């Protein structure tokens, strides 16, 4: 009789722990999902002198979103791996330098709830380079040793140069500019 009561109590206790774990995991997943979400609206109608083909438009949208997701991961976790692939040239060098400097200073940056309004302004006649302008909005959180020291809603303007790789577009230049 006592054994039955004990096992029922244990089962109830285990269920509670399981429920707690599930809720913690779901909260963590939800917050990660929110942080990892990068919204990009792309307007290619003003690109000159070459018109942007629909397949290219989809590729740019996919690769630009991926690049920002990767950049956010790299600067949040202070790791270089996410930068391999979506970035090349000067953009990659600067981001690598930023991550290495953050590893040294103990700082990290979080780009939360990103919204990008991306516009193609120049597409080279032979399709080998595209210039884009991005108006990006996000929450920028700066942490020092895990403690948040700065949290700000930011609206930033970027001039971006992208070039086609073997099967995807890469960011070669990502330069923030003052709002004109």
């Amino acid at each position, binding site marked *: 009789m006592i054994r039955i009561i004990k096992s029922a109590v244990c089962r109830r206790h285990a269920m509670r722990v399981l429920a707690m774990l599930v809720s913690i995991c779901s909260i963590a997943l939800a917050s990660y999902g929110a942080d990892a979400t990068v919204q990009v609206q792309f307007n290619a109608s003003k690109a000159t002198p070459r018109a942007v083909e629909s397949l290219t438009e989809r590729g740019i949208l996919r690769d630009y979103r991926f690049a920002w997701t990767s950049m956010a991961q790299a600067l949040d976790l202070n790791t270089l791996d996410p930068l391999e692939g979506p970035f090349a040239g000067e953009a990659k060098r*600067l981001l690598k330098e930023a991550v290495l400097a953050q590893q040294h200073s103990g700082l990290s940056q979080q780009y939360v709830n990103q919204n990008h309004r991306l516009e193609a302004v120049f597409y080279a006649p032979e399709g080998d380079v595209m210039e884009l302008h991005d108006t990006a909005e996000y929450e920028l959180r700066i942490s020092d040793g895990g403690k948040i020291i700065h949290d700000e809603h930011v609206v930033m303007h970027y001039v971006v140069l992208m070039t086609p790789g073997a099967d995807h577009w890469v960011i070669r230049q990502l*330069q923030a500019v003052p709002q004109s």
Partner: protein
Amino acid sequence: MRRIFLICAGLCVAGFPMLAQDLRVPASVTAGDDATISTTGSGKATFYLLGPGVSRKSDVKLGEEIHLQGQELRNAGDYLALVCSDPCHSGTFYVVAAKPAKLTFLVHPSRVPVGRSDALSGVAFPFDQFHNLDLTPVTVNFQLTVGNKALFTRPVRTQNGVAWFRTASGKSAGVVQVTASVDDLTARRAVQQVASEPCNLRITGQRIPIGILVQTEPVHDCAGNVVPDGTIVTFSATEASGKSTVDAPVKQGVARAQITAKGETVISVASGVVMGNELRVGAKQ
């Protein structure tokens, strides 16, 4: 009364850095230039600078200027300065590109047939010495030259940091120098202009013991340029027993083929979409 005064004084002294602490960042800095950030207040604080490729943390004294070396302001973009002594105060400033020191110049294609409209194009991006894209409008002079003769000259003002041109290819085969220049900066590329499609194909032929030897006269395009070696010429031979076809590459301006035909034969020639003359060769004696 004295107690109240002491409490107020204590609160003022304790709260002074918090109330007076502020920082003033420069409005804009040119890449590679030194800059200073001024702070107010007193006591110690932690200074942070975050920008493209930069993440700095250092101790500072409030009320003193913070010197930023040109070395850490080489990359154009936005910089966030934070001074923290509970709470943190922040300021943002931009570093803009210095004057152009390098031109990235893309020219297409590297090999182009003569006499084609809109066949050649070039795109130029001015960058400063720190590889920042220069967005201040500058005039890029594009030029195409053959030897000392200028075929094309066009000044183009950069828009959003880019200038471009498109033009027809020239009339003569050979190397064309394509240059883009901004003040004393010049970027050069070479484009090989090659003959266009063959024009006025003509063939001659004669019987030989094992068939017919047929060859073209030197193959030119319509502007008189000899077509490049390797251009394929197709010979078709029609006789009573049927039709045969031979592809032959042009070598030193001429394409040759040997056709095994015994009876009376009509031979025609074509290259690309261009047809040549027909040749009738009598039956083998």
